């Protein structure tokens, strides 16, 4: 099956199996291994990317459903010399331990902050990140980082 998707601003035309998942296309065909597959059962959120402006679990989206869509992965939001404010806030607040959940956390948190228009409190962040699991259990600093990034993203 032929699909065309725009990933991090680049158009890609790909021939993929009918049962391919978006997460596998990103990782194995496009080499974007920042999108992690943690549980593979739609629970953990390590695979979260943005698809047409919404945070989705890419392990639970068929490649065909993403045909024609604009996808942004963790690789598309910043680089080491120019971190996204959310990435910078995660670094500042020590919001990661092993780092496995971090790409999904950051992609979810960016969507959460963008849609909330700078009004999130701690409870909103904890609710908004319900679909992202950190097995190091480092939630406290993650919440701190998201609240800090909310201010940074407003002024950016």
């Amino acid at each position, binding site marked *: *099956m032929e699909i065309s998707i725009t990933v991090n601003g680049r158009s890609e035309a790909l021939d993929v*199996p*009918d*049962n391919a*998942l978006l997460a596998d296309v990103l990782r194995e065909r496009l080499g974007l291994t920042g999108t992690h597959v943690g549980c*593979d*059962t*739609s*629970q953990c*959120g390590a695979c*979260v990317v943005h698809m047409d402006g*919404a*945070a*989705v*679990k890419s392990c*639970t*989206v*068929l490649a*065909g*459903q993403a*045909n024609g869509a604009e996808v942004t992965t963790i690789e598309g939001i910043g680089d080491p010399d120019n971190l996204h404010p959310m990435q910078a806030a995660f670094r500042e607040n020590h919001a990661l331990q092993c780092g496995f959940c971090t790409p999904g956390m950051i992609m*979810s948190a960016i*969507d*959460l902050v963008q849609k909330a228009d700078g009004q999130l409190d701690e409870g909103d962040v904890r609710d*908004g*990140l*319900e*679909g992202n699991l950190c097995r190091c259990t480092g939630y406290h600093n993650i919440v701190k980082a998201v609240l800090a990034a909310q201010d940074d993203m407003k002024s950016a």
Partner: protein
Amino acid sequence: MYQFNYHRPASLDEAASLMAGADDGTYLSGGMTLIPTLKQRLAAPSDVIDLGGIGALSGITDNGNTISVGAMTRHAEVAASNAIPALAALAGQIGDAHVRNRGTIGGSIANSDPAADYPAAVVALDSTIHTTKRSIPGGEFFQGLFETALDEGEIITSVEFTKPTSAAYAKFPNPASRYAVVGVFVARCGDATCVGVTGAGPCAFRWSQLEAELASGFSASAVANAGLDHSEFNADIHASAEFRGNLVRVMAERAIANTA
């Protein structure tokens, strides 16, 4: 996942003819249940017919006394709507943010999962399920565990809800899956009150004994007087039938207290 043929039709007619031509086809809406099921090899359809390319199926229309929610409308869109605040609040409690960005009302009710949230609202509010073949009253739609009134190949196009005078939904979520262990939707429509229960039985149902009690006085204290037989309720690792019976009462009290 087993192999299947993926299709993305642009119209309902095309979807129906793809289904008619498939050995063992299935429709795909948001995929929040079907894709995990496929991944676990618990289903092996020959053809997956994605309804996501049919634009006419998405969106919310306010008709005055009723609202129409297109079958492919995502939970997040319903959660952000304001025509029926209790319905929006219910949609905002489904799964997590990512599930709400993909999951749809049509997919949810077509599945008739006993622990899904929407069915409580479908049976409690005066609702109609519009399909490619007919219109089905909301009260007749759910027929059992994962069983609905839908025929083979029939597609839900929209769900129409009559606006209640006031309503509220109270849910006891499973802390891991966020499915409803029990959820109760209370809707006042003029003098009448309707109570929809999900999570407790094989499919959503109306608690008519409580409705009768509430007719003689709308108060949470009516719950204690309402009969409820929990002997046939669901029992699993999450909750016994008896515990679910108690949760129905507690969630009903909360929903009544929150119904203005």
